[in-house]
């Protein structure tokens, strides 16, 4: 079965592009107030392409933190992508290693979520490319525009658009929840754990998301494997009787 390709990927990527628009615009503005030139701002968005890490680096630069520690912090914040790309590898069509090395650069929380929830079956490389190209273009372009003209949208609209990426995550999750208890359990467990880490301030955001995700994914898998065993034994007893 041929799944959706580049055109469908671009269409799905448009949602992320819209969601990135206010976030990138604000990043550009903050970078300017931090003292970065336009070239330095664009270079960070072009070569790093990781929203949370870029924002954090600005506040660390302002606080005159040692650049080595900024790099280390970036690693800690982004290590969760390791988990996402390991998961994504199960979902993507097998392809040449260099192609995978290229699109790996474009895996963010948002592109991962869109690509990995795009229905049953293997995902084509061209679909992933479409999602990533538009997202990346939006991120880089609006970082630059934010630096040059500032976040010039009316305030109420800027506020409203801050919900865009979360609304997208909700829209990706909710249809999968319908009639699938395992997915409901996975999402609720991870959300509850993440809430716990957030309100107790036990872990920083990056780690909290990673630990919540792993614990939920493993625990639910163990639970369902056990249930599978119990069911299988019950069937065997019936057949034996």
């Amino acid at each position, binding site marked *: 079965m041929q799944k959706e390709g580049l055109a469908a990927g671009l269409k799905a990527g448009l949602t992320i592009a819209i969601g990135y628009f206010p976030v990138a615009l604000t990043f550009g503005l903050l970078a300017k107030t931090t003292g970065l030139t336009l070239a330095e701002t664009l270079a960070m968005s072009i070569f790093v392409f990781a929203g949370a890490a870029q924002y954090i680096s600005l506040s660390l630069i302002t606080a005159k933190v040692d650049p080595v520690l900024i790099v280390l912090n970036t690693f800690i914040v982004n290590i969760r992508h390791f988990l996402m790309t390991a998961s994504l590898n199960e979902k993507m069509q097998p392809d040449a290693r260099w192609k995978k090395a290229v699109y790996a650069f474009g895996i963010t929380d948002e592109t991962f979520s869109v690509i990995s929830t795009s229905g049953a079956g293997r995902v084509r490389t061209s679909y992933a490319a479409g999602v990533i190209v538009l997202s990346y273009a939006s991120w880089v372009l609006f970082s630059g525009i934010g630096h040059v003209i500032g976040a010039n949208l009316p305030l109420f609209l800027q506020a409203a658009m801050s*919900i865009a990426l979360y609304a997208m995550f909700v829209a990706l999750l909710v249809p999968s929840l319908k009639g699938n208890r395992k997915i409901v359990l996975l999402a609720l467990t991870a959300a509850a754990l993440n809430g716990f880490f957030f309100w107790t301030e036990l872990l920083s955001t990056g780690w909290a998301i990673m630990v919540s995700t792993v614990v939920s994914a493993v625990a639910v898998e163990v639970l369902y494997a056990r249930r599978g065993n119990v069911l299988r034994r019950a069937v065997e007893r019936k057949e034996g009787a």
Partner: protein
Amino acid sequence: MGSWYWWMLLGMAVVTYLPRAIPLTFLEGRELPPAISGVLRNIPFAVLGALIFPAILYAQPEDLLFGVIGFASAALIAWLGGGVMGTVLGTIVILAVYSLLAG
């Protein structure tokens, strides 16, 4: 900034790229044990739960009601079959109206 900025950027680019690239390239063509691939298949749904909650409540850190309305609107529109784009745009419109009225 200065030349240190470009060295820092190089470091940031490398440590961001490696966790993205290593699993996709090293695991290519490898068959994982069923238990591991089962866990990996669970990750998208678990990570969505953690990405949404509780951060969505603090989309506007000083206005909790903003996040609650946004969360409820997005969930409702998505549940009714609004699709990804419909959910995102619909939620933005609802919150724009709310922000206009509240602001």
